[in-house]
């Protein structure tokens, strides 16, 4: 009789553990649901961008005009970099230019 009672007790204990574990798992899922809305999986295609959007041109700026300003910018930056290399200092490293991209 005693072994039978022990077996039944162990079965009930095992069942109780299973129920508690299942309940806890379901409870956690419910708690995670709001955070999951912002997860990459929910955001779908936004996680991987096929193409980086091109830089925005200023209003009334044509691509040719922008490239022209970019060329000027690079030339001025190279001149500033060469001036730094001729006489290196913290001030000459970050000396400003009249670059059309910054003004």
């Amino acid at each position, binding site marked *: 009789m005693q072994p039978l009672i022990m077996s039944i007790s162990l079965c009930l204990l095992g069942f109780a553990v299973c129920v508690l574990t299942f309940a806890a798992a379901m409870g956690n899922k419910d708690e995670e649901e709001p955070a999951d809305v912002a997860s990459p999986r929910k955001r779908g295609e936004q996680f991987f961008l096929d193409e*980086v959007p*091109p*830089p925005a*041109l200023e209003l009334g700026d044509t*691509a040719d005009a*922008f*490239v022209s300003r*970019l*060329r000027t910018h*690079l030339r001025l*930056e*190279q001149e*500033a*970099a*060469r001036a*730094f*290399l001729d006489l290196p200092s913290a001030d000459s*490293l*970050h000396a400003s230019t009249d670059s059309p991209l*910054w003004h």
Partner: protein
Amino acid sequence: MLPHESDLLAGLSPDDASQVLVLGGNRALSPGEVIFELGDEARDLYLVKKGRVELTLPMRVGGTQEDVPVEERMAAQMLGWSALVPPHRFTLKATATVETELLVLPREDLQRFLASRPELGLVVMTNLAAIVGQRFQLFQTMWLRQVQRAVEMRNA
């Protein structure tokens, strides 16, 4: 300007410089003609005999790709040092901007000659290190200036 006064052959005697020059062949280019494209296999070095060569990188501007100049090479200056630096691929595009004449030096011929004359090889490779180093320092400085600008814009 004499051959041994070029950036690649500086420090060589006129006779030694001439021995290097005979390894190459001449190439004439019209304005706008492309010498090499970014990504091409680099088999040759080039010495500008006359004219101008623009080195450019591709940049996307307003949805189109533009070649933006990053450096210019003129008479007595070399270009194409990727031919001597693995993986031997050009990392810029080179275009003649005016009537230009180049001396084309095949890498294998140049290396063979310099190996047979190590004292010349040391001079030429030292010159090459200076040319590569100048490019590196210039771009490092430009990069740091842009990063500084980005920091200022972020804190503005």
